[in-house]
């Protein structure tokens, strides 16, 4: 490609009369189309949400719902592949709790007028196990499965805590913020339990304070 975005052509002053006419016509049309003539002077400053929801509420509800949905198939792999009783127990409780949490998120999304398909559902976001991750997990057993599973589940829980904290700080609706606060506490406890359930440590996952390790950016 050439550096310029498009081709070029030159016009001579002979084209001037036509240009003047075209310009006048353009201005008439422009005056009629001008925002001040056809629409409110001030557009909405943000995406229009059903009050009292703000853009953060909707973004968090969608992202948390998508994260939960993508983690469930991973959690379902543990019973047949892990040999750690605590890990199998935790995976089972996570699956049940996160199924319930997901339903709660969906209810609030519907209340916010966002009942349609979740835009993040089919998209690899930080914290989500990818289809390659799931494929790899399916082929593992015992300690190898536990280590890989714990790393992925850890990244998932880290991300859930991180975004729930964002909602607590920036969300608009009190009920959504309360849900986020409860989820942040619960996910932090689940993260601690996951850490205890893998006695030999988890390679590459050191529970960093603050920002979660972003698995897609490793």
């Amino acid at each position: 490609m050439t550096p310029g975005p498009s081709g070029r052509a030159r016009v001579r002053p002979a084209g001037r009369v036509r240009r003047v006419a075209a310009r006048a016509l353009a201005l008439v049309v422009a005056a009629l189309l001008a925002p001040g003539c056809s629409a409110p002077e001030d557009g909405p400053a943000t995406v229009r949400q059903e009050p009292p929801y703000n853009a953060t509420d909707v973004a968090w509800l969608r992202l948390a719902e998508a994260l939960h949905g993508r983690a469930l198939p991973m959690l379902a792999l543990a019973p047949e592949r892990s040999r750690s009783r605590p890990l199998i127990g935790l995976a089972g409780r996570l699956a049940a709790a996160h199924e319930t949490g997901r339903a709660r998120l969906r209810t609030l999304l519907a209340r916010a007028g966002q009942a349609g398909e979740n835009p993040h559902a089919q998209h690899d976001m930080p914290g989500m196990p990818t289809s390659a991750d799931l494929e790899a997990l399916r082929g593992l057993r015992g300690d190898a499965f536990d280590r890989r599973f714990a790393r992925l589940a850890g990244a998932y829980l880290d991300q859930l805590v991180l975004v729930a904290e964002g909602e607590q700080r920036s969300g608009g609706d009190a009920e959504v913020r309360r849900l986020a606060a409860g989820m942040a506490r619960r996910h932090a406890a689940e993260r601690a339990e996951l850490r205890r359930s893998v006695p030999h440590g988890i390679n590459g996952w050191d529970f960093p304070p603050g920002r979660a390790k972003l698995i897609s950016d490793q």
Partner: protein
Amino acid sequence: MIKRCLRLLAVLPLLLLPLPQPASAAVIRVAEFPADCPFSHRLPDDPIVFPGLPGASHMHSFFGSRVTNAHTTLADLQNGATTCNPSVDRSSYWVPTLYRDGVAVEPAIVTFYYLGEGVRDDVIATTQPTPLGLRVVAGNAKATGPDGSSIARWSCLHAGQVAPSKDFVTCPAGTMLESYLDFPQCWNGRDLDSADHKSHMAYPVAGQCPSTHPVAVPKLRQVIRYPVSGDPSRFRLSSGGGFTMHGDFFNAWPPAEMERRVRDCIRPIVKCGPDGRPL
């Protein structure tokens, strides 16, 4: 509001007077003005898709505004510094970060062209300024392959023999991998954003804007050159394969500067420089 319309109509006769001629005998007949906005910073944030949720996004490389993060508002951009030439452009532009062998690579050249092309000349002549505060996402971060669902294209700077592709291409040594992405240029005339951050804008059909999105605004063309070449299997974007390339735009041009460029460069179909004057 009505007064404003009458005022606009009142000045029309003045436009029929002879236009001042540029010093040079000819102008370049391309409706265009650019902003060159080099890399500013990198964050896993997206104030359009995940406002108020720092760390929620895949990694983004930000151009233009130096202050953009998950919490950024229009006022933050208007009061913040920029990397852009012209420096009056306080807009924020961002894309998924490119990695080579897992190491982030930032572009060497980043240009945002504002263009008239894409609609008929008589429609170009009615182009309206891009509204202040407009937020748009173009391209498809969720594309699953180099098919119809992706819009961005990849090519090589100074290697036109390499056919453009929706996925990464193999650029000869000494050339640069480049990405082109055109934003939609038809606005619904009402919303500065929408739930999917796309549907308040549309692409033109058969040289004009559809009735649902009747207002033609300048077409934003994002052109990014990365100082890399060679084997595409070494590259990935934070959002996935090359076909997931997308761009986010948060407009913070001062309205007077945007209006002047639309009036002097886009509507009369004249190629301008970053200062918004004919070249």
